[in-house]
C-alpha cells in the first residue's frame, strides 16, 4: 500500500495552488494511491539493470546557436495578461514566499 494520506493530498493541492473540497481529497487520495501502487508494481517488474528512461526518443545535444531572434513587443507580451501596469504584469502580492 502506498503512503498516500489525505493530508499529503491536501499538501500537494496547496503546492499546486488548487483548492480542494473534503470529498475531493478523499477521491484523489484513493485515485493517487492507485497510481502510486501501480507504478510500484512496474518498478518491481524492471528491478535490476534496466536504466530509468526520462526521454523515450534517443536524441541528445539539440542546441540553439547563441543568436538573437525577435522578441514580442511589450504590448504583445502583456496582451494575454489579466492586468498590467507600467509595462509590467500586475499580480497579487504573495506573502508566504520570498
Amino acid at each position: 500500500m502506498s503512503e498516500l494520506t489525505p493530508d499529503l493530498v491536501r499538501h500537494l493541492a496547496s503546492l499546486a495552488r488548487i483548492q480542494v473540497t473534503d470529498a475531493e481529497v478523499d477521491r484523489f487520495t484513493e485515485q493517487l494511491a492507485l497510481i502510486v501502487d501501480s507504478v510500484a508494481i512496474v518498478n518491481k517488474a524492471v528491478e535490476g539493470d534496466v536504466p530509468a528512461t526520462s526521454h523515450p526518443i534517443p536524441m541528445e545535444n539539440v542546441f540553439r546557436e547563441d543568436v538573437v531572434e525577435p522578441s514580442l513587443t511589450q504590448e504583445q507580451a502583456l496582451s494575454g495578461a489579466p492586468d498590467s501596469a507600467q509595462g509590467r504584469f500586475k499580480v497579487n502580492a504573495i506573502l508566504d514566499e520570498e
Partner: protein
Amino acid sequence: MAKDELMNYEQALEKFEVVIGLEVHVELNTKTKMFCGCRNDFGDEPNTNVCPICIGLPGSLPAVNKRAVESSIAIGLALGCQIAPTGRFARKNYFYPDLAKNFQTSQYDEPIAFEGALDVEVPSGNKFTVNIERAHMEEDAGKLTHIGGSTGRIQGAEYSLVDYNRAGVPLVEIVTKPVYGAGAEAPELAAAYVRSIREIVRALGVSEARMERGNVRCDANVSLRPHGEAKLGTRTETKNVNSLRSIERAVRYEIQRQAAILAKGGKITQETRHWHEDRGLTSAGRPKSDTDDYRFFPEPDLVPVKPSHELIESIRASLPENPADRRKRLQAEWAFADLEFRDVVNAGLMDQIEETIAAGAKPQAARKWWTGELARLANADGKDVADLEVSPAHIAELANLVESGKINDRIGRDVLVAVLAGEGAPADIVSSKGLEVVSDDGALLAAIDEALASQPDVIDAIREGRMQAAGAVIGAVMKAMKGQADAARVRELLIQRASE
C-alpha cells in the same frame, strides 16, 4: 535580533564550530537567453526581451543555448570539476510570479559539473580549500517590484509588477560542500570565495560578474555546532547578499545570532533569511521548503546534454591562466612586496595595474597611482576604485609624465582629477592648461634670487649647513611658479647658488 542580544563574536567562536556553505549564482553573458533567442540584456524596457518560450505560453518549446553550455563547462573545468558525460534538465515546480511557467528549468540529479575544489586565500594570508559539490545550469527568474508597501518590501505590498526580461537568462549555480575549519575567518573566507569565483568567471569571459547588477549573487548557509560534535547543526540560508562586504557581515551576524540562541538552549529554525545592508541584520524569510515540495522531474521538452570528449578537451585547452597562478606570476614580474601585492589584490586592481604596466608605466608607479590617489578619490566619491571611469592607458601616460619630470606629483594629482572629470588624456590636459613644470633653470634661478632678496639670511644658513632653512625659499619659488616646478631641482639650484 537586536545588536545587544547577539553573542560576542569571540565568545561565539569559543563555544561553537562554524560551518558554512555557499551557493553562488553566476549570470552568463551570452547574447541570448538559456532556452530562447530573446536578448540577454540589462536595463531594457520591461517585458521587451520576452517571447512565448520565456513567458511560458502553451505550446512553446525551449532549445538549449549552445554557448551557455560551453560557458558552463568552462566554469566547471576552471573549478577543477568533472564534467558529466551526460546531463539533463529538470523542472523545479513552484508557484511564484517571478517565473510565468510555474517551474524553473534547472538541473537536479545530473548537473553538468561536479566534485571540484577551489583554493582561496583570505586577507590574513591564510589559505583554505573550498570543495565544490556541483555546478549546474538553470535559468534566472523575472524581476518583481512590490507596490504599495512603504519601502518596496514585500511586507505590506498591495500588488507586484513583474518584468520577465531576466526570466530565462542563463545561470550557473555553484554549490560548495560544507566548509569546515575556517573558524574566526569564516566570514572573510565566504567573501574571498565569492571574490575568487567572480575573478574566475571574469577571466573566463563568461560573465560580466558585476555584483551590483546581480550578475553574481550569493546565498550563504551558516550553521553552528559545539566543538567536537559530529552532527551538523541546523542551517540558515541568507539570500541575495549582493556585495562582498555584505557577505562578510551577514555571515558574521548569523554566527553571532545563532550562537546567542543556541547558548540559551534555543533551536535554530531552518529557514531562508534576508540580509538588510542598511540595518546590518538578517530577518526571517520563508521556512525552507523540503526538496520534495519542488517535485523535480526530468524536463520532457529538452533532450539530454552529452558533451563530447573533444568539446570538453578543447574548452580545457582554451582556459585562461588560473587567477591564483596568475597572481603568483605577476607578483614576481612586478617585484611587489607581499603586502603591496595583497593590497592590490584586495582592492581588485590587478587587471588595471597589469594594463597600466602594459601601457608603459613602471610597476611601482602603476601601483602607487591605483592604490594611492585613485583609491582615495574613489573612496571620497563612495565608489569602488575598480569601477572608476578611467583607462589604464591614461594612468600610464600620467605616471610617465611625472616619471619624466614633465609635471610634478602634485600637479599630477590635479591632472588625474581632470582626467576623471572627462577632460581628456593627461598629456593633452597638461599642455592645454600649461601645467608643465618650469624646467627653464634661468626662470627658476630668477625666482630663487627674488625669494633670497626678501630672505637674505637663508643663503648664509645654507652655507653653514642648516639645510632646513632652504624650505622657506623653495616654498616661495614653488608658489611663484604656481606649483609647476620640480622642488628637487629648485633645491639643487639653491644649493648651487649658495656655493657660488
